[in-house]
């Protein structure tokens, strides 16, 4: 098994620079104090940092998992070969009820839970902080921008990338985008900012907006709502979730190499929070789910009017580990 990055740095790089070496570095430049803390000159410190950097860069990219931001949804990550890499611009396109906002929140949740700072430029002002917390986002690490115009949204995203935010999500909201899609030059500027400052940029738009700037474009091909319940006239139903079909429309750079020609689409599923249990022991929501199942079985209808029987069974399997 390949050693992790922490392991390599601690064992092979920092060890030779023990106390003796630090002292030596101080002596070489004649900066060593008579007693007390060891004074290391700036060139010596630069040497140390440079060697640490060299070591980190010598680790193959596949090992550098921290360089990528996974979205947390398996099928999407598979399409993106592990997630969004730093310096990349990925665009997700989808019409209303496509599930792209959920994907965006999922990516933010994955990043903030790993301790990274992240920013959401929310042009439509659509974020519900409580739902964000439920989706797993560590809201203390999330910077939320509520611009009113696409121009200020693009400008804000550029500032955030320049400030060193490792993940910036730009959501253009619902179809009448205030200010339109913006000029292509500003998208290219944004992409250059992502490359220069090594930040990952995830753009979520109702229609293709970034032009040639994005490395990859994922398009959600119609999301369908899944309903729990009878579906017959007058019978109550419950919204259970959403299923969507994701297509990799454009891939450049590493994604064009890694994505196989026939592996450019994937299915994904999202569930309504109230129907998902939160812990292994269950809780109020586990009980709720039982109730829903009883309710569904009592109606003897197809459980998921939007989904196939097969899908429902697979969902139940994953839910209950069977």
């Amino acid at each position, binding site marked *: 098994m390949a050693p992790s990055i922490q392991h390599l740095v601690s064992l092979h790089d920092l060890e030779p620079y023990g106390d003796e070496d630090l002292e030596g570095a101080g002596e070489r430049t004649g900066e060593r104090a008579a007693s007390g803390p060891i004074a290391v000159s700036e060139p010596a410190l630069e040497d140390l940092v440079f060697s640490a950097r060299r070591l980190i860069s010598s680790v193959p990219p596949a090992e550098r998992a921290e360089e990528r931001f996974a979205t947390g949804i398996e099928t999407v990550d598979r399409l993106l070969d592990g997630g969004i890499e730093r310096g990349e611009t990925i665009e997700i396109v989808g019409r209303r009820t496509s599930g792209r906002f959920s994907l965006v929140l999922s990516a933010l949740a994955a990043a903030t839970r790993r301790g990274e700072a992240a920013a959401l430029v929310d042009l439509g002002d659509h974020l519900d902080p409580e739902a964000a917390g439920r989706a797993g986002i560590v809201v203390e690490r999330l910077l939320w921008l509520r*611009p009113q115009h696409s121009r200020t949204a693009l400008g804000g995203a550029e500032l955030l990338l320049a*400030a*060193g935010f490792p993940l910036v999500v730009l959501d253009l909201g619902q179809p009448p985008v205030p200010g339109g899609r913006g000029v292509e030059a500003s998208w290219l500027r944004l992409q250059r900012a992502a490359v220069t400052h090594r930040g990952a940029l995830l753009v979520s738009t109702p229609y293709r907006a970034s032009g040639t700037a994005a490395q990859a474009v994922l398009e959600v091909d119609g999301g369908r709502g899944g309903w729990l319940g009878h579906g017959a006239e007058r019978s109550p139903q419950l919204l259970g979730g959403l299923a969507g079909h994701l297509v990799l429309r454009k891939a450049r750079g590493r994604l064009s190499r890694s994505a196989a020609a026939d592996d450019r689409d994937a299915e994904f599923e999202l569930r309504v929070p109230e129907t998902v249990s939160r812990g292994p022991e269950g809780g109020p929501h586990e009980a709720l789910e039982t109730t829903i199942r009883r309710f569904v079985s009592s109606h003897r209808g197809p459980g998921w009017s939007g989904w196939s029987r097969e899908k429902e069974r697979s969902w139940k399997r994953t839910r209950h580990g069977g």
Partner: protein
Amino acid sequence: MPASRPPSPVPPGPGTQGPGERQSGKQSPAEQGPEDDRRREKGRREKRPVRQKRIPRRPQPARPPKPQRKRRHARGGSRIACIVVPLFPLAARLRCEPELLREGVAIFEGDGAAARVVAATRPARAAGVKPGMTLTQARARLPKLIARARDAVCERTAHEVLLEVADAVSPRVEDPGSEQWGTAYLDTSGLERLYRDAGGPRAAERALGEELVRRLTAEGLPARIGIAASKLAARVAAGLPDSPVVVEDGEEAEFLAPLPLHRLSPDAEIAATLGRWGITSIGELARLPENEVASRLGDAGRRLHEIARGLDPRPLIARPPSPVFREGLTLEWPVINLEPFLFLARNALDRLCRRLEQRGLGCKRIEMSLHLESDGSLAQRNGYHQRSIELPSPTRDEKTLLTLLRLDLEAHPPGAPVVGFQLAAHPDAPKLAQLSLLGPASLSPDRLAETLARLFALLGPGRVGSPRSPSGHRPERFQLVEYTPPPPPKVRPPIEPGRGLLAVRVLRPPVELEVLTDGGGREPAGAGRSEAVGAGEVREGYEAREGREALEGREALEGIASLDRQAGIFRCRERPSPRPRELAPAVPEPKGVVVVPERKESARRETGTTAEKALRIQGSVRVASGPWELEERWWAEDRTERDYWDVELDDGALYRIYRDRRTGRWFADGVYD
């Protein structure tokens, strides 16, 4: 030990007195006791002829001052530096308007014919403009003279700058008060050790003085420095050319002796008397016997004599550091447009940011006070336009602050021409963070602060921050707090699989809809009888068709309702009731949804985006799930009572819509996405 060291032992700091010196200090009053008595006796004998003649005569010169006096002074070992900005009103004005440096400028005080020149620049002085002239006289000598009135705001800020520069050099700084703007005293005891390379304590003090001059010149204030053991000697030394002037400890009297008497700035009456006596230098005054002078000139004369002998017992009184940084300017003519004002404000901000930088602080809140021109009416007289801008994070980025001022003034114009302004920056310490090598990289606090301020300027207030959910149940509620991310973990945690939850895009504000319900026809604006009847019919039919199965379903739904109440989510309103028609008027089920046309217009007006189309929600309902009841603040006037439905339209879009039970109107407040 360098050769320039004085022969008398100078202790390096106030706390390191030699035992011998302390002893001499104790002895000196005992020695002086009988001698003073003798002098008093002599003074009493000589008083009579003075009273008879009523004109004080010049006393006979006494023996030179005693060496004990010198030692008494050398005892403390404290060193005091005095900074004096010559022609301070002029220097303060030129600091705010540096483009006038090479022009013939005069600062005047008073109005109209009473206007007198206070100070003038070198070109003006070369043309014959002198302090005390009337403005007309000055203009007669130099027609191109640029005249500026004394500006209290300018002088106050320049004085604050002076004190801040002194603060940057010494831990103890005295502010002599508003009477002596342009002067500051510093305690420099022990500071000479910081300039060891200079070679000797005297050279070190000279180097310290040079640094002070350099720093003040960088701030636009030409200054002179004097360093001595007493405040007075330092003040006189600072008045001399060839700055900085250092006076050796214990040699104050020798230093002062050759200087003309007016350096001590005596009272006019005493100065006239001394002039009649033929005394022109400080040394001549010092040589006169103290008692004789005191008997002729009174207490003021005695004090002057003491001063002339280099004795100044006043200690240095350190001031507390200032909590606010101010910059401002009184304008010569009123400014009407924003651009010229911002040009002036930019210079002031530049100075302000440099001052903050010197102290290692950032600006957390900036207060702008604009002095407005009076239009004669009582309401407008001495009008001030006060604005306060809170920053999300301390910053000293001048561009950002200027943009904030611009945005604020554009949003809240003062309404009258501006004749003066003052900017006050409330400082805060910038945030610090420890960077880590192995964990996720944290953001640089400086850059983050600057970016937050720039975002604040770009998007306006209330649009940048960290999201929080205040208590309540309405889905559109939110709260923005200051973004202060916690430090990242030391080691990267492993990647966890996501939860894959369906999120809702909240529509703020909710989009009003026109909904066709089962009740038949369009839903009336108010909750009426027709609705209840319609729903009742639906219910009846439903029960008849479904029978027992439906009842089971309802029980199940009731289970959901109670559980949801625990979880704090929506409550299901539908529950079995013995008399449904009367007690539980059901909510009409939505059948088709269209946006109310008037709403589009109002939305346009609110957002100001006339060219934009409003969000279009239209179609027939394929599936509807609900109603889910939401109640908030039932005790208040502005309570919320809503019945929520999840609906799927024929185009596949999923909406969360609700009917306001108080008004009967329908709204969409979310899109499942």
